[in-house]
């Protein structure tokens, strides 16, 4: 029928058209009539259209050639060739198709189907040919040509995409690498072309080659290879991170977050982006969930890190993203460009750096050579993860609503900051987050009674804790319960006074001497507040008798006030129960405190004494023996006598609470003395390193607040970790515990004398 029709009107069409049609018909001879009928109808329409083209001869001739290869190429060819401009290109173009078809029909069809898109996105028409040739070369170079088809197909799609990240010459390099991967896995090669190459965004060519080597060597199974080369396995991102020569995130995180905070006006959390593995759209670049910023563990330079962090800062809390006119943008390239624009408006000085990095990465340098229209993505742009942002927003809202019901008395800001902390820590699943929150906020059963049961007056305080793995604080992490030590009468102090009367008297006397007069009057001074009548009379007498009159007739009063406050922390961990030379550590510590209290009473320096013990981060107990404003009376002495070994040692939190208490005191010199018997250790307080780095941070915080911390330990193995916590001068390791009572006052005198 069709054939009939065609021939009836055939007088109106050229011989070339007829030939083309015949060829097409022959190509489908093996198909079922119904299929071929539809096909030929289409072909006919295309031929008629082609007849109108000035290039009709060449188009029809080439169509005929292509029909001889495979019928599946015919219609895509007609479709594509309409867009291909000058006749000289058509011939080249058609040749390419035919050569590709020899290797793989699928790849050739993809090439044809993507041609219109490629022509739109490539800068120069000639690039169309380069684009195709690169694909062809991949086939030609590969040993096992069959294994390349998926990769080349993917290449035609990716490289012609409007959001493609690379210029064509970069693709040529990737294809060369793909050949190496293809030798082991076809699917891995495809994944590499589709996504995995983006993991190498910050790598130069040599580094990329090494990254591929690592993958080829290190992956056993097919699945492993696929995950490595499509950039979704941890191994693959880590491998890329350690190849980037440059700056590690952890060294620069503080500085970077301060820069972001300055720009945004509120704290910004920076995290390693490895927690985003597996998120849709994540390809190893910088990214944000809308609340936290995730950066690669390594970047080639600090400057690039800075651009990444600042760029992501512009994307924070902007979901959906709107430009300055309030228009919603969804296209990633548009969003990135707009974010850069905003950034430069705020920090025009960055323009220089942006240009520099663009040049370093061979972007924008010779835009005419790159073969792309539109902007080429910059190395600091990273990935936009709209799904993650949406989910995060939803999760936060949902949990906040739920929490508002359950934990009414917890302020929403605190809740939000807890939540962002947990999200930054990598947990994203709503139920898991809810559970974590519950663990933080719910009461859990513990061995030690709840303070409410004790009917004591308990004050609670929340403190942050340093996590050395995160390189960041976990906010509101630990709860201090400030309790009052038991006040049951006991004869602890009386016994000590009886036994150590001599020593106490001696130490009191020594300390008395340290006590300054509140004001010292200086007589016969050249200046002062008041006249020194005695000196004046003398001076007048001198003058009358002819001698020159002295000017030294004033009284000056100078303030010489001793302005020292000291806070004592006494370790009540279970281990203080241990006996050395017949005496328990706890008893020696208490005795030392009793003597010290006497000495300080004599001297008059304000002081506070607290015992501490913990059982997990919500039960860091601090037992008040004596506060700064309380007298050292019978009650305080009973409390001291009642101190007993209890639980564990969460040193960082304890130091933070002491710091807080010392901050309330207005003395010029503030001292914090910690008596302990061992290393910091608590439930879920990590390993020794974790505990030590948190303690060290807490000590640094104290120091930055003008507090002089001082650790006295009776743990002989303590020297190693003490050195890590605090420089040698600020700690003492007791050769014998029994020395503590004599040593403590001596030390104090030396410290403040």
């Amino acid at each position: 029928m069709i054939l009939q029709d065609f021939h009836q009107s055939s007088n109106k069409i050229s011989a070339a058209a007829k030939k083309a049609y015949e060829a097409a018909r022959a190509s489908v001879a093996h198909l079922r009539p119904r299929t071929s009928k539809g096909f030929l109808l289409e072909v006919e329409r295309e031929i008629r259209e082609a007849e109108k083209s000035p290039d009709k001869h060449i188009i029809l001739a080439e169509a005929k050639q292509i029909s001889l290869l495979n019928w599946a190429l015919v219609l895509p060819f007609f479709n594509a060739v309409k867009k291909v401009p000058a006749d000289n290109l058509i011939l080249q173009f058609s040749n390419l198709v035919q050569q590709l078809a020899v290797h793989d029909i699928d790849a050739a069809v993809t090439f044809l189907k993507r041609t219109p898109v490629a022509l739109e996105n490539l800068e120069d028409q000639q690039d169309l040919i380069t684009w195709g040739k690169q694909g062809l070369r991949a086939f030609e170079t590969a040993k096992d040509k069959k294994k390349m088809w998926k990769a080349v197909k993917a290449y035609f799609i990716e490289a012609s995409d409007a959001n493609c990240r690379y210029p064509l010459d970069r693709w040529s390099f990737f294809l060369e690498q793909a050949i190496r991967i293809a030798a082991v896995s076809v699917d891995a090669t495809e994944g590499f072309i589709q996504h995995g190459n983006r993991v190498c965004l910050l790598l130069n060519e040599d580094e990329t080659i090494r990254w591929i080597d690592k993958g080829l060597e290190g992956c056993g199974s097919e699945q492993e290879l696929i995950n490595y080369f499509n950039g979704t396995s941890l191994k693959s991102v880590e491998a890329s991170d350690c190849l980037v020569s440059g700056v590690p995130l952890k060294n620069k995180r503080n500085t970077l977050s301060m820069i972001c905070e300055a720009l945004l006006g509120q704290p910004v959390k920076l995290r390693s982006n490895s927690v985003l593995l597996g998120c849709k759209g994540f390809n190893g670049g910088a990214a944000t969930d809308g609340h936290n910023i995730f950066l690669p563990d390594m970047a080639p330079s600090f400057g690039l890190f800075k651009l990444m962090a600042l760029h992501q800062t512009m994307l924070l809390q902007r979901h959906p993203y709107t430009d300055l006119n309030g228009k919603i943008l969804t296209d990633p390239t548009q969003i990135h460009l707009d974010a850069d624009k905003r950034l430069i408006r705020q920090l025009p000085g960055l323009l220089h750096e942006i240009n520099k990095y663009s040049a370093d990465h061979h972007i924008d340098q010779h835009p005419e050579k790159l073969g792309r229209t539109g902007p080429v993505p910059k190395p600091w742009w990273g990935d936009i993860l709209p799904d993650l942002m949406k989910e995060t927003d939803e999760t936060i809202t949902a949990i906040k609503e739920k929490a508002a019901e359950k934990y009414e008395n917890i302020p929403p800001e605190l809740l939000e900051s807890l939540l962002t902390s947990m999200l930054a820590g990598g947990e994203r699943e709503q139920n898991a987050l809810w559970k974590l929150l519950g663990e933080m906020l719910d009461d859990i059963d513990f061995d030690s009674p709840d303070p409410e049961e004790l009917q004591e007056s308990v004050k609670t305080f929340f403190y942050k804790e340093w996590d050395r793995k995160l390189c960041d604080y976990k906010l509101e992490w630990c709860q201090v319960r400030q309790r009052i030590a038991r006040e049951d009468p006991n004869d602890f102090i009386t016994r000590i006074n009886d036994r150590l009367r001599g020593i106490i008297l001696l130490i009191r006397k020594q300390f008395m001497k340290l006590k300054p007069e509140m004001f010292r009057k200086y007589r016969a001074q050249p200046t002062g507040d008041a006249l020194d009548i005695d000196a004046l009379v003398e001076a007048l007498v001198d003058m009358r008798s002819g001698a020159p009159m002295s000017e030294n007739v004033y009284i000056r009063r100078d303030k010489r006030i001793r302005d020292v406050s000291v806070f004592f922390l006494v370790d009540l961990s279970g281990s203080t129960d241990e006996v050395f030379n017949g005496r328990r550590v706890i008893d020696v510590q208490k005795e030392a405190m009793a003597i010290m209290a006497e000495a300080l009473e004599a001297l008059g320096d304000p002081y506070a004494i607290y015992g501490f013990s913990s059982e997990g981060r919500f039960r860091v107990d601090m037992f008040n023996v004596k506060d700064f404003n309380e007298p050292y009376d019978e009650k305080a002495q009973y409390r001291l006598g009642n101190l007993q070994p209890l639980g564990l040692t969460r040193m960082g939190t304890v130091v933070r609470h002491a710091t807080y208490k010392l901050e309330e005191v207005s003395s010029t010199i503030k001292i914090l003395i910690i008596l302990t018997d061992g290393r910091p250790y608590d439930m879920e307080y990590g390993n020794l390193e974790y505990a030590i780095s948190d303690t060290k941070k807490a000590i640094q915080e104290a120091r930055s607040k003008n507090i002089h911390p001082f650790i006295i330990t009776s743990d002989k193995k303590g020297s190693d970790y003490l050195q890590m916590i605090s420089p040698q001068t600020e700690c003492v390791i007791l050769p014998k515990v029994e020395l503590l009572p004599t040593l403590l006052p001596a030390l104090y005198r030396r410290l403040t004398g």
Partner: protein
Amino acid sequence: MQNIHSKTTSPKNLNGIAIEDYHITTEPFYVSTGNEISLFESAYRLKMPVLLKGPTGCGKTRFLEHMAWKLSRPLVTIACHEDLTASDLVGRYLLRDNETVWQDGPLSLAVKHGAICYLDEAVEARKDTTVVIHPLTDNRRILPQEKRGLLLEAHPDFLLVMSYNPGYQSVMKDLKHSTRQRFLAIDFTYPPSKEEQAIVMEEGQVDENTAERLVKLGEMVRNLRQQGLEEGISTRLLVYAGRLISDGVLPKEACQAAVTRAMTDDMELQEAITEIIAGIF
């Protein structure tokens, strides 16, 4: 010991200065940032002592100079410090030519002549010193000169003004409530960006663009207050940076000197601020 408005002088020859010398004759440049001017004028009419609260370098002193000029009152400024005694404020006997001569302290001078007396950073003075102002700040309005056995009655135009910086937390507790609650408080903060820009332009003698950048820098560094900066960067420092720039120093170097190093010794913080400066200029 005292730092008396733009005059450097020791207490001994204070008698040589007449109250006229404390008059401000040319209008001090001041950009208003709220209702502080009208509030102060009311306080002046009602003779209520005023407490100017605010961080350092945000324009408290300048404001008072402006008000003194506006109300045509002399302004006696006393910078308070730990060793300031009551005699330094009230006066003392001096010895001259065989005789003891009484010399009024700056406070007495202000009380007698109806000046505005400004106790700058009043918290720095010891408590036993600050109590001498108590009888001046209630309706008695008298100043006892105990050593002379005299009671000075305040001139009807006399007004007492103190400044204090709530930034230093521990010191804050040292301002006794019995002192504090005698004053009406006016809050000062860093001026809003438009105003601050005008100030930096005028005082720092820089063009609008440079002023805008400096103010932007100020805002961004103030965002870092949580990060261990005790206080935000003051308008004063921004003005300094402006002056350096107008004197030909490169903007980045000027900001390094006036901002980065002036604000902190912390290496990371310095690095961050340096990057912010590089971003702005």
